C-alpha cells in the first residue's frame, strides 16, 4: 500500500521552544489516522509542515511523494480543515465556494452539492462573517472536500460542533473513506470520536511521538485489559486472582469478577484463571475481555513514555 504522507525526523523550534522533535509518521493510502495529543503537543505544527505552510528545521516530509513546500500542485489532492477556519469574511458562502471550484478546476455546481452534504444549504446567501462557529466549521469541511481530494487533513475537526453535528461529521468521514477511498489524518483531543473512525493513531506529546500503530496493536502493547470472569464462586476466585503478580485490581459483582491486568499478563491470563478455578473447584461460566478506552490508552502510553 503506497504512502500518502511520509515524514521523517521532523523538528521545529520556535526560538527556544521545541514544538516538534524528531517526529516521524506515515499515513498509508486508504487509512484514517488519528493524531492524538494534548494542547501544545505539536499537532498543529506537524500538520502545517505536512501542508507546506512551515519548513521543518530538520527532517523532511513528502506528501504523495513530493515536498509540499515546493509543490503546491499536491493541494489538488489534499483537503484541509484548520482548527480555526480562515476565510475572507466579506464573501458570501456560495460565491466563495464557487470561486474555490474555479481555483481547483471543478464544476461550480459542486459548491451547492457540498453545502447540502454538510447540511448548510440554508446559508447560501449569507456572508461568511454572519455564520456561527458551528456553521463556519461545516463550511470549512465543505471547502475541504469540494475538489474531491484523495487525502483530508483536519485539525480539531469537531471542536465547534454540537453532538449531533459531530456524529454526522464522523458518518461523513466514514462514508468518504468507504465510497471514495479518501485517506484522513485527523488531529483531536476528543478521543472517543477518533476511536470511532480511526484505524491507526500517532500519539504525540511535547513534540515527540510516543506510540504509533493501529489501534488493536497499541491496545495489545500498552493497555491494561479488564477480564470479566463469570463464576459460581466469585469471592474465592477474586481472592485467588489477587495472587497473580500482573493483576492490578479485582472487583466482584453479582455476575462474577472483574480482573484488571497489566500487559505482562496478556498471554497467560486465561490459562492462569482456569488453573486457579480448578484449584478452588470453581466453575467458570464465561470469560470475556473488555478493552481500555482510547483515553486510557493515551494515558498509559504517555505515562510510560511510549516505546
Amino acid at each position: 500500500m503506497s504512502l500518502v504522507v511520509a515524514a521523517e525526523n521532523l523538528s521545529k523550534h520556535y526560538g527556544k521552544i521545541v514544538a516538534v522533535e524528531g517526529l516521524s509518521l506515515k499515513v498509508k493510502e486508504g487509512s484514517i489516522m488519528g493524531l492524538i495529543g494534548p494542547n501544545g503537543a505539536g499537532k498543529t505544527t506537524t500538520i502545517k509542515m505536512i501542508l507546506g505552510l512551515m519548513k521543518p528545521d530538520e527532517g523532511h516530509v513528502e506528501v504523495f511523494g513530493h515536498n509540499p513546500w515546493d509543490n503546491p500542485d499536491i493541494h489538488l489532492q489534499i483537503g484541509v480543515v484548520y482548527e480555526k477556519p480562515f476565510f475572507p469574511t466579506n464573501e458570501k458562502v456560495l460565491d466563495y465556494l464557487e470561486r474555490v471550484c474555479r481555483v481547483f478546476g471543478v464544476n461550480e455546481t459542486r459548491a451547492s452539492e457540498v453545502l447540502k452534504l454538510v447540511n448548510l444549504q440554508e446559508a447560501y446567501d449569507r456572508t461568511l462573517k454572519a455564520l456561527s462557529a458551528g456553521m463556519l466549521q461545516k463550511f470549512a469541511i465543505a471547502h475541504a472536500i469540494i475538489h474531491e481530494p484523495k487525502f483530508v487533513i483536519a485539525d480539531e475537526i469537531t471542536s465547534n460542533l454540537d453532538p449531533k453535528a459531530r456524529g454526522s461529521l464522523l458518518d461523513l468521514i466514514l462514508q468518504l473513506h468507504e465510497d471514495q477511498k479518501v485517506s484522513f489524518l485527523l488531529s483531536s483531543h476528543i478521543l472517543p470520536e477518533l476511536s470511532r473512525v480511526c484505524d491507526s493513531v500517532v500519539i504525540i506529546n511535547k513534540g515527540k511521538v510516543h506510540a504509533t500503530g493501529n489501534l488493536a496493536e497499541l491496545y495489545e502493547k500498552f493497555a491494561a485489559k479488564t477480564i470479566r470472569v463469570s463464576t459460581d464462586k466469585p469471592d474465592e476466585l477474586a481472592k485467588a486472582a489477587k495472587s497473580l503478580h500482573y493483576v492490578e485490581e479485582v472487583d466482584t459483582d453479582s455476575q462474577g469478577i472483574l480482573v484488571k491486568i497489566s500487559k505482562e499478563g496478556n498471554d497467560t491470563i486465561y490459562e492462569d484463571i482456569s488453573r486457579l478455578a480448578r484449584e478452588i473447584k470453581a466453575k467458570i461460566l464465561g470469560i470475556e475481555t473488555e478493552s481500555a478506552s482510547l483515553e486510557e490508552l493515551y494515558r498509559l502510553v504517555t505515562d510510560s513514555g511510549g516505546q
Partner: protein
Amino acid sequence: MGKGKPFLEILASALHGDYKFPIPEFLAFLFLLSSFVFASFGGFASQGIPEEYFVFFMTNSLMGLPLFILVMLLLKNIASGIGNDLEKGTIQTILAYPLKRRSILTAKLLSAFGVAILLFLGAQISALFILAPDMVVPNLSVVLLTYAANMSSALFIASITLLMTLLLRKGSLAVLIGIMFFFLFGILTSLVSFIARAMDSLLPMQLYSVYSPSFAIRFYYSSLQGMVHVFWAPSFSEALMYIGAGYSITAFIFILSYFYFCRRLNV
C-alpha cells in the same frame, strides 16, 4: 480533475477585498479633483522661462496631492490585503490552493498596486491633456521623467511597508512605519538643502536624491532656466542615475520580500 485558474481567482478575490464599492469610484473622483484643483501654472509661460521647466513644474504640481493619496492607498492595500491575511490566518487557506507562493504574492501585489496606479495615472494623463495639451505632447520625455522620478519614492515607501508587513505580520504596524517614513522623508525635503549648505557638501542632497529622484530632477531643471543661482546643478545623466538608483533599491526590497515570502515565511 483539471487545474483551474487559481492565479486569476486569487487576483479577483484580492481585488474584491481591496476595492469594494465605492472605493475605486471615490478614488477616481479624488484623483481627478486633486489633479485639477492643485494644478498650478505659476505664470511661467509669460516670463520667458524654458518650456521644459514649465512642463516639469506643471506636472509636479498636478501630482502633489494625488501622489499622497496614491501612497496612502498603496499602504492601505498592503495592510488590508497582505497584512490582514497574515494576521487573521487567511493566508493559510490561500496557501492550501494549488498555486506557487510567488504567484500568490504577485496576485496580491497586482491588486494592491495595479488598480491604484492605473487610477492615479488615468486621472493624471486626463488632467495633463485637458489642461495643457500643447505642452504635453512636445515635452513627453519631461513628463515621463517627472512621473518616473516622483513615483520612485512612492514605490520605495510601499516596498518598505510590504517587507515590514511580511516580517512583522501586522499590517497596521507596518503601515504606521510606512507613514512615518513618508513624513520623515517629507520633512527631510525641506531640510536637506539647508543641511547641505551648512556642511558645504552636496552629499546630503545626493543621498536624498536616491530616495527621491524628483529632488535631483528639480535642481536639474532649475539649473536649465539660468535665472537664479542654484546650489546644485546635476547633469541630465546624473539625474537619470538617481532615478535608476531609486528604482534599483525599490526593486531590491521587492525581491527581498518575494524571497522571504516564498522561501522563509512560515505561517
